[in-house]
Structures are given as structure tokens and as C-alpha cells.
């Protein structure tokens, strides 16, 4: 089956998001960056489980890690969310619709300007 060339990163992204616990972790990280320990306490989960989820989120490109002293902080990264530029889709859809409607108005204006034009320059 033909695969789109960008499907692998997208699959990792989708895979990362398909798990409700990972979505909860992402939600928590949107408030502020946190360590594994903080996340484990917050979700009452074992640290290795949290680390596994974070690894999946990192593979999906959704989470970044930075080290400061003895601590590793995880944060949400907006970069790969560009793959899901569809968040703009409602706006794109709106404007594509408007630009189409502009075309209809223009065609009508042409008709109005040239009511007897049988050639119909379309």
C-alpha cells in the first residue's frame, strides 16, 4: 500500500496522542514544564511509567527535555504540531469559502456589466 512520505512522523505523533494518559501529561505540561517526579506525584503513577509516556511524547515530537542542574524538565514543543496545521483548518475553510463566494459575485458583476454578451467570457 503506498505510504505518504510524511506518514512516519505523523504516525508517531498520532501514536503519542492516542493514549489518554499521555494526553493528560501533555495537558499538565501546558501549564508549566515539570520533572518526571512532579508528574508521577501529580498522576499518582510510578516514575518508570511516566518516563515511558514521556519517551513516546518525545518520539512524537510533542515534548522537549532540558537539563538544569540535577533535574530534567519536560515541556510542550510547538514544532511538530505544525504537522497538524489543521488547527487552522476552520480558518482556511472559512477563507476558501469566502474567496469562492467572491468569484461568484464577480461573475455576477460581469453578467450585470455585459447583459447581452452571448460569448460569455468565463
Amino acid at each position, binding site marked *: 500500500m503506498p505510504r505518504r512520505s510524511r506518514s512516519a512522523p505523523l504516525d508517531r505523533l498520532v501514536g503519542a496522542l492516542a493514549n489518554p494518559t499521555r494526553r493528560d501529561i501533555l495537558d499538565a505540561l501546558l501549564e508549566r514544564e515539570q520533572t518526571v517526579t512532579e508528574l508521577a506525584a501529580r498522576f499518582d503513577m510510578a516514575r518508570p511509567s511516566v518516563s515511558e509516556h514521556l519517551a513516546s511524547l518525545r518520539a512524537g515530537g510533542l515534548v522537549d527535555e532540558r537539563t538544569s542542574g540535577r533535574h530534567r524538565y519536560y515541556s510542550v514543543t510547538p514544532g511538530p504540531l*505544525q504537522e497538524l*496545521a489543521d*488547527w487552522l483548518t476552520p480558518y482556511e475553510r472559512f*477563507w*476558501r469559502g469566502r474567496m469562492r463566494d467572491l468569484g461568484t459575485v464577480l461573475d455576477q*458583476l460581469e453578467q450585470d456589466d455585459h447583459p447581452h454578451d452571448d460569448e460569455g467570457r468565463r
Partner: protein
Amino acid sequence: MTSTDPATQSNDEDLTTIVVDQFYPHPPERVWRALTTPELLAQWLMPNDFRAEVGHRFTMRGRPVEATGFSGVVASTVLAVEAPRLLRISWADAEGGNAMQTTVTWTLQAEGAGTRVLLEQAGFDADDAVDQLSRRIMTGGWRSMILARLGEILDDAA
């Protein structure tokens, strides 16, 4: 997953601009007329009290859009008018339903017997973008899309 519609691009480096590129087999003057005449603007965009004057403040009333939190009422100011090539307005939800303030620019270029129009809506906040997308994910707005894609992945692996 993303459409291959050639008329729409999102700048890959930047979640903050929408670009729609459309050619019309009509001269620039007619396009400019449709863009700047309030009665015509009302037909393809929204009912309004627009005037093609820099600094003019006006509103436009349309239908609310749940997907974007749009209340249906737009508060705008005319920022630039350069007949017949460029019109720029500010665009914000009049009822603060989604706090974003953006600019919308139409640029017209004669092309052959017609006009190429570039529409750009810019100024979406990148942090807002992450926030909104993630919020949508969390509230399950993407659930069906993700599950559908997941289904495809699992079918491929089988």
C-alpha cells in the same frame, strides 16, 4: 491528512499566517470593486458598514463558528487602502469570544486577462495555536480523526 488544495498554504515555519491564493478571470478594477463596495462585500463576506477609508472602524456580522469560538461579529479597522492593489483591515472578535486580533490583507495583481488575489490572515499567536490545538485534543475534538488514523495504522500492521 492535510489536503493538497493548491490554493491554500500554511507557512510551514509559522503557525501564525493563513494564505489563500486565488485567480479570477476578471480585471483588477472589478475585483477591487467587489472588495471595497459595502453591498458587494456583504454578499461574499458579511453584512457590514465598511468604508474604504484608512482609520474607518466598522463591524461585520456573520454566523458564529463553534470550531474557532467565533461569536459571529467582527470588529475591524481599515488599515490600508491602495486602489486597486491592496486592502488591509484588522480583524477581531467583537465579543472577545476568542481573544485573537489579526490582520487580513488582500493583494491584487493583474495576471493575463485576470487578477491574482492573495489573501493573508496574520497575527495568530503561536502560543495560542499550541494552546488551542491541545485544548481541542484534550476535549476529544480530534478523537475521531485520531482513531480513524489509528485504525489505518493497525490495518497496515496486520
